[in-house]
């Protein structure tokens, strides 16, 4: 049987970033399970050395099309050209605004299944590729398959997968694509004015080795401030559960969970977090989870590596000294 083509569409334009590394790592794992071939589709402008980095995460092939602009319609046409020629069984996109649009265009054009914001993908003999995403208004994950669809497409949530450098040396083939269509972009609009706005910088959270999480069990501002103080001391970023963010203790960008972000630090300390599923899906890739809670039956302890039954306020007073 022919190998299955598993695509990762790179949207970083001029380099291979860690988000793409995460996707390639997952694609590599899926290729092992499904007898697949990992193909990175790289549109943009970069060097051959940079493209070679895809092999570190397990790519078999890079299809590279040089282009100077990052435009969804243009990329759709190039992607369609490549897809019509070599085909794909699975296509993985990041969930950046750009790739969300690109993947939707693609799914609509080819009428193929698209699952948004996946947090996991697996391959099963019985079902083929299965995509998991948050089921709204439920504390569980929906498992989704594509039916009657030429290929399966998905966008993936950042940090849902772990970036992993493989320990085998792979022969990477780089195929330079020669797109014959027009590189013109849409001129049906005109920008009247444009101001830079402060973007919510999340680099601190993506790269944080240590993260402190705050939940409803943190009942007063004094305890919260002590956690922040300790956070500074240990170079940890402080995040919160949905209810803490809803209460206004932390800005939305620091919300971790199903409706917030996913993180994967080396150490995550959960202060007064009961462990609702909505939060747990966002921290499940943490290397080590330490939970501090006064309720010894709190569900957070089910996934914690280190369990500390204690009053958060008393604990943090001692801890921040």
């Amino acid at each position: 049987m022919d190998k299955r083509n598993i695509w990762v569409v790179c949207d970083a334009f001029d380099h291979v970033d860690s988000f793409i590394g995460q996707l390639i790592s997952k694609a590599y794992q899926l290729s092992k399970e499904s007898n697949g071939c990992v193909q990175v589709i790289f549109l943009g402008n970069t060097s051959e050395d940079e493209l070679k980095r895809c092999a570190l995460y397990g790519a078999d092939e890079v299809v590279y099309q040089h282009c100077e602009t990052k435009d969804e319609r243009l990329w759709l046409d190039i992607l369609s050209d490549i897809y019509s020629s070599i085909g794909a069984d699975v296509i993985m996109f990041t969930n950046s605004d750009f790739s969300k649009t690109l993947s939707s265009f693609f799914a609509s054009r080819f009428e193929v299944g698209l699952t948004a914001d996946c947090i996991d993908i697996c391959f099963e003999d019985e079902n083929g590729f299965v995509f998991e995403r948050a089921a709204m208004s439920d504390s569980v994950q929906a498992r989704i398959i594509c039916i009657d669809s030429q290929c399966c497409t998905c966008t993936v949530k950042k940090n849902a997968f772990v970036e992993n450098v493989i320990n085998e040396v792979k022969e990477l083939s780089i195929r330079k694509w020669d797109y014959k269509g027009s590189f013109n972009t849409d001129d049906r609009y005109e920008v009247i004015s444009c101001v830079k706005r402060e973007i919510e910088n999340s680099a601190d959270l993506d790269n944080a080795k240590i993260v402190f999480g705050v939940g409803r069990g943190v009942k007063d501002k004094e305890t919260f401030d002590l956690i922040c103080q300790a956070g500074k001391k240990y170079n940890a970023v402080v995040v919160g559960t949905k209810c803490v963010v809803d209460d206004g203790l932390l800005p939305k960008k620091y919300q971790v969970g199903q409706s917030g972000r996913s993180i994967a630090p080396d150490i995550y300390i959960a202060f007064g977090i009961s462990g609702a599923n909505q939060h747990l899906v966002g921290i499940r890739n943490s290397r080590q989870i330490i939970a501090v809670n006064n309720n010894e039956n709190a569900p957070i302890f089910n996934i914690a590596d280190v369990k500390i039954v204690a009053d958060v306020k008393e604990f943090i007073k001692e801890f921040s000294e």
Partner: protein
Amino acid sequence: MIKIVVCLKMVPGKLIDAERSGLIINPYDLFVLEKLAKLKKNTDISVIGICMGGESAREGLVRSKALVCDDIYWLNDIKFAQADTIATTKTLSAAIKKYIPDADAVICGGHAIDGETGQVPAELSEKLGITYFSSVADIESFGHDSAVIVKKDEGHEMTVRCRYPFLLSVDSFLTYASNLNIIALKRAQKWEYKIISSEELGIAQTDCGAAGSKTKVINSVNIIYKKESIEVGGSIKEKADHVKKLLQQ
């Protein structure tokens, strides 16, 4: 007159407020309706709502009508049910092509709070073959051959003039309609809503609803795996010291 189509979705009210029963207008769509109601006061626009939904969508449609809609197409047929984004897109595009082929603008809420995929607007623009603008924060004005919108993307806030026809995906929301006129509401209740079946629309059964969907939920699972944890005992000081040590490693 500028013809504007607004795609409307009705979502469970309890997602906004635990006390609310029934369906309400998706907050992102509501923002669009309110914005258009304001613009309509001094611009010659006609607003046409289009909604895929069963009988429970009626109340939301009445409110949409009272707020701003001149006309509403209600795609109401059990065959439309259980549609994924591809089947939804096909149905909506078929309706727009059939009933409002001369639309100048199609406007969608950026996503629906009960699905959160945000895929339909982009998919629909592709199916209709019109220019797509995502991350639209505001609509400033509708002119003779173009409209002015404000777009906020990952690092910029842009004011853009876009030529018709186009599709906007609007990322601002409102949870409560502010200025609903009682007389308009009464009139809207009496209005006769056009119910469009799949047959009338002329869409094949295999192109809409569950049968036209390309994705299917097979089951739901809990993916949080239980771990064996080590419990740290002793005094508060001993517990705190243990964690401090772990952090220093």
